[in-house]
């Protein structure tokens, strides 16, 4: 059969950063994938070596808008590892609260976008509606909805006011009730099962081989989680479950994120209840010569920072590895054998973001040119869901919940 090349990207609505996928297809079926990155290369690793140890914290916070606390978290731990600094217990608890709030809002963002993409706009509206109170909590506790600037080598920059905690508990209770409803509706929905199950299966062997991290590896049944494997901050003092799913498909990735949401809410509540009094900063004066590694479990997986210092005021080398760097190559294992409408869903399952410029072209390399936009690809994906819904024949649990919700207000 004639082999066609479909360029996906570099700017694409599904991708957080500009990346370029070349899909080799025969008919509708993807037979090979070629990936290329580098379009968003901002030279942050090099820039960091020109800043001092404190300024780099702000710099790495700007790597990602959603994981805006995971990068500083990993970086400050790398600096603390380098110098062997210990930080006060209260700072450790504050760090966990910020990290978990970030995980909740990031997962809700993903659930909403995934819902939108497969044609469940209700899920999109719900998830984003319930993400708002989380951002309000972030604003109340840290002063900002995102980019909290709470981390610093040696502790945290600002203390939390315990008078806010009663209100935070109340808001989280509201969110947890809604999330449980949403999780139940999504996990029970037969159309979603049909749409997402057995799509983009990442086998255990491939998950390990590609070194995938976060919900991507946990959805393949491997309980890898830096919070447990190399406990940092106060995670060794807290009680939580690592959520896994055995199937490795898109459904598994959705399930893991939904289950993690609830664990994260519990973690934040635990931290507020058990937080000790005391100082929040170890006041590091000088960073000695040496090397240090810090990593943290971001919403998408492990963020890895390596720093090397020569006793001076700034790092001489700062290596940063974000989770998508190891998750994206796994598309080579998951996309092959699926149709183009599924590829959109599979890439989305690793974590999508619509903030990028929408541009995608479908070209036939044997002269008869044909252009397909991101919008059309989305339509393709929605068509598949619509057909499944029609086959189901009656209201799906998500639709039933909506109907009930509308009736009861």
């Amino acid at each position, binding site marked *: 059969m004639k082999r066609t090349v479909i360029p996906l990207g570099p700017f694409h609505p599904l991708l957080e950063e500009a990346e370029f996928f070349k899909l080799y297809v025969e008919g509708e079926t993807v037979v090979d994938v070629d990936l290329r*990155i*580098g379009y968003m290369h901002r030279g942050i690793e*090099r820039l960091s070596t020109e800043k001092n140890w404190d300024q780099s914290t702000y710099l790495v916070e700007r790597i990602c808008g959603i994981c805006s606390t995971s990068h500083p978290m990993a970086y400050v731990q790398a600096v603390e*590892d380098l110098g062997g600094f210990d930080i006060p217990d209260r700072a450790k608890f504050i760090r966990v609260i910020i990290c978990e709030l970030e995980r909740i809002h990031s997962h809700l963002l993903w659930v909403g976008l995934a819902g939108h993409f497969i044609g469940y706009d209700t899920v999109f509206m719900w998830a984003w509606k319930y993400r708002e109170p989380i951002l309000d909590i972030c604003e109340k506790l840290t002063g900002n909805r995102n980019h909290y600037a709470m981390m610093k080598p040696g502790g945290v920059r600002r203390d939390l006011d315990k008078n806010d905690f009663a209100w935070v508990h109340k808001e989280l209770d509201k969110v947890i009730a809604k999330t449980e409803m949403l999780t139940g509706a999504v996990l029970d929905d037969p159309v979603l099962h049909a749409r997402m199950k057995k799509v983009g299966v990442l086998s255990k062997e491939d998950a390990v081989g*590609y*070194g995938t991290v976060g919900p991507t590896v946990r959805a393949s049944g491997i309980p890898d989680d830096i919070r447990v*494997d190399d*406990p940092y901050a106060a995670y060794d003092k807290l009680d939580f479950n690592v959520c896994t799913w055995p199937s490795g498909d898109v459904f598994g990735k959705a399930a893991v994120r939904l289950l993690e949401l609830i664990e994260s809410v519990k973690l934040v509540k635990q931290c507020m209840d058990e937080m000790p009094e005391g100082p929040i900063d170890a006041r590091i004066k000088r960073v000695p010569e040496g090397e240090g590694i810090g990593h943290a479990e971001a919403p998408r997986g492990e963020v890895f920072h390596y720093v090397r210092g020569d006793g001076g005021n700034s790092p001489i080398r700062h290596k940063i590895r974000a989770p998508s760097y*190891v998750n994206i190559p796994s598309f080579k294992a998951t996309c092959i054998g699926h149709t183009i409408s599924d590829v959109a869903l599979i890439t989305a399952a690793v974590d999508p973001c619509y903030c990028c410029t929408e541009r995608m072209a479908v070209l036939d390399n044997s002269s008869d040119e044909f252009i397909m936009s991101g919008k059309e690809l989305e339509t393709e994906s929605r068509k598949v869901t619509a057909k499944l819904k029609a086959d189901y024949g009656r209201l799906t649990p998500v639709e039933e919940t909506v109907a009930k919700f509308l009736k009861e207000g």
Partner: protein
Amino acid sequence: MSDMSALAATQIRFGATLLDVSLHNERRAYISIDKKDAPSVCRYLYEEQGGRLATASGIDMRSGIEILYHFMIPRDHQLITLKIKVEKPAPETGSCGDFLPAAIWIERELNDILGVTFTGHPDPRRLIMSDDWPEGVYPFRRDFKEPAR
């Protein structure tokens, strides 16, 4: 896999091949090896000790380029870093990409930024530097000068 930690098992298996083993603290171990042994030690950590290649990093020291492979060993709660040194001006070492897919991208990146050639790499194309970046100019080398604007 036995009850023994991956670090101890590696020390027994490779003996004097490991030039230096140092513990920064109980969670961070650094092993220096000769560059010719890097693929076999990486393969052992990955295939027999359940190690996950978190990433690799490279630093241009004055004496040569240091390459570090960071392996996370979840069961030991430990991160083992393998250190090798390759000499300038034409740094070159064996690739781990043929048995460890996680190494493919990071070795391509190291080639882009430091100019280290990984022999036997399954896909030695550029990864992060743009296509019109000049050949033989490596931004993380000490002698790199930013072009005048």
